[in-house]
């Protein structure tokens, strides 16, 4: 007994020492993100992108001479859980900043925590306009991804290019993102092609296991083309049921989807069953089916593949990566890690990313980032579809 006590004390001291020394130096970033459940498919690659950014920044000497430290937690894509984790990260782990969350359920919820605690929060992927609209904006919230208005503008631009299309049907998951994205698409389409009629709108629930009846109901209205905001497993199921029902043949593959199903993740899941010839988008095409790939992107994908040890990189990592670099640039510009100063520094800040420059709007704290769109094509080198000649769209969007 007498011996065991000092040993335990020594061990405890040894365990504490490096941690205490480390904690003193690092700039801590709390990162709630779904790591379990169906949306972990996206949460994990986003976290990998953020981790890669932290690794690179630290290897180059950190920010203001201090290393970055990422504290990731599983939000389970649940708004309540994300809020609880954000509070815990602030109180218990005394993080300096928040980043992360995936869905448009979690991000607006965490935004309120960031407002209460006056801590900068950078949302990588939430696209719903509610996150930064005039009623909800506050000095500490920033959004890296585009929003549904930007997505709708790009989607309607591509739909308008089908000159002979007169009747369009829409299908989207029945929740905030799906409803917002379809409303934005229709509003934008009315401006460029008032002659197009919306003949049918379908609202399957998120995670719908069976799309057959939605597809046949849609086909009975005989649309010339379809605008779609389905993604992940929903798009996989939709495609596998729609193909034998003859949907893609009936619309001559004129389906436009604005929910990032052009990513390597989605293309790999469907493999040869992918509906080649449709128009889709991605935050990052990863595999560039054309000659216009930026040099910085080639390096990013090589680094990411080395970091994740995966055969193909994910199209979602980029937003995690961009978020961390945005924060690092903000801290550098502010010259300290006080959220009030960093929040001011982020206003109007431009920073370089592997897919081009991004700038936070002074008024609405978002980047209005374009995404990469194109026709999903089969090429000899890959067993899955890739975006041919990815085009950054919309080319211009009225920012504020």
């Amino acid at each position: 007994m007498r011996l065991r006590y000092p040993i335990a004390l020594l061990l405890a001291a040894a365990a504490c020492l490096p941690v205490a020394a480390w904690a003193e130096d690092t700039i801590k970033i709390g990162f709630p993100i779904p790591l379990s459940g169906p949306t972990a498919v996206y949460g994990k690659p986003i976290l990998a992108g953020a981790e890669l950014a932290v690794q690179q920044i630290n290897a180059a000497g950190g920010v203001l001479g201090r290393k970055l430290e990422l504290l990731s937690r599983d939000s389970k894509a649940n708004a309540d859980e994300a809020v609880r984790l954000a509070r815990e990260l602030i109180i218990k782990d005394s993080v300096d900043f928040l980043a992360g969350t995936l869905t448009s359920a979690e991000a607006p919820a965490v935004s309120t925590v960031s407002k209460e605690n006056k801590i900068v929060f950078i949302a990588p992927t939430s696209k719903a306009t509610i996150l930064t609209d005039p009623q909800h904006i506050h000095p500490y919230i920033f959004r890296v991804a585009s929003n549904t208005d930007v997505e709708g503008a790009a989607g309607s631009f591509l739909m308008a290019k089908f000159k002979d299309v007169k009747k369009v049907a829409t299908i989207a998951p029945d929740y905030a993102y799906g409803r917002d994205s379809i409303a934005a698409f229709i509003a934008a389409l009315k401006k460029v092609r008032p002659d197009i009629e919306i003949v049918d709108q379908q609202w399957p629930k998120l995670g719908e296991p069976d799309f057959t009846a939605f597809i046949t109901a849609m086909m009975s209205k005989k649309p010339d083309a379809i605008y779609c905001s389905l993604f992940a497993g929903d798009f996989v199921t939709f495609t596998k049921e729609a193909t034998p029902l003859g949907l893609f043949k009936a619309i001559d593959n004129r389906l436009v989807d604005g929910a990032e199903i052009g990513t390597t993740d989605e293309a790999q899941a469907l493999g040869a069953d992918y509906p080649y010839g449709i128009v889709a988008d991605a935050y990052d095409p990863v595999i560039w089916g054309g000659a216009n790939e930026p040099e910085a992107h080639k390096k990013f994908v090589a680094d990411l593949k080395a970091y994740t040890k995966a055969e193909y990189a994910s199209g979602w990592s980029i937003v995690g990566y961009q978020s961390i670099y945005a924060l690092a640039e903000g801290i550098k510009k502010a010259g300290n890690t006080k959220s009030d100063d960093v929040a001011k520094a982020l206003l109007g800040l431009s920073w370089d990313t592997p897919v081009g420059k991004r700038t936070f709007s002074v008024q609405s704290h978002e980047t209005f980032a374009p995404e990469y769109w194109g026709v999903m094509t089969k090429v000899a080198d890959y067993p899955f579809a890739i975006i041919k000649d990815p085009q950054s769209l919309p080319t211009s969007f009225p920012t504020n």
Partner: protein
Amino acid sequence: MSAGSLFSQFMGGLTTAMFLFLIASGLSLVFGIMRVINFAHGSFYMIGAYLAWQGVAWFHPTGAGFWLAALLAMLGVGAMGAVIERLFFRPLYGREELYQLLFTYALVLILGDAAKFLWGTQQLSVSTPPVLAGSVQIFGTTQPLYNLFIMAIGPLIAFGGWLVLNRSGIGRMVRAAQMDREMLDALGANVGTIYTGMFVFSSCLAGLAGALVTPIQSIVPGMDVLIIVQAFIVVVIGGMGSFWGTFWGSVIYGEVLSFGILIFPGFSLFSVFALMAVILIVRPWGLFGRPL
């Protein structure tokens, strides 16, 4: 609305119905005979889907690969069912139903995490077997061969199940176990074996349903919970424990959902839940069940 599109909608509803029947029949059977509400039935279905994916990855995606994988899924889930029944369900038979419910719910969580651990969270997908990949034209509409195949499988299993339960020696024993377990035990029959057999049969059905769904749906974590809710609605409509009730319950569910989507596109789920609510009020034991 043309006749062709109404026919398409009807056939779509029938496909949904027959898939649900494959799943709900096992659930209903286990409840009818063993009085166990198996929440984990949807998880067995999910494991069947993952096993089928694994089988297709091991064997070959073309030729007989898919069918071998489906067999593997069916037998694999059946074997899993046997182990679970022998080790865990058996001590719970005499207990209150709440214990069984809690236990099957724990199984849902354990199997869900096990599937994530083994196969990851990435959505997976299996191609349609080449023989059934095409479609045929019926009344000017395009009908996938695979859907027609599913529509044939459902009634086949319903009829086979009915034949075994009502016209064979095994079926007589099973019905006897359902009516009076103690008496059958006292007469010297091995009720334990009958129970295990029924549970394994129900697990096999779940595994098979999981395998057969892979060519037209994606395999994702969470598919277990989604399907079990639908299967329960079917069983409530048709009547707990009634085999034909489950069959017609599935057909009604599929068609109401399908035409509900056509007629009120904004409220796709409303029609089904409204139907369930009406049945629960008017005939709480279901359309084909008997009052408890």
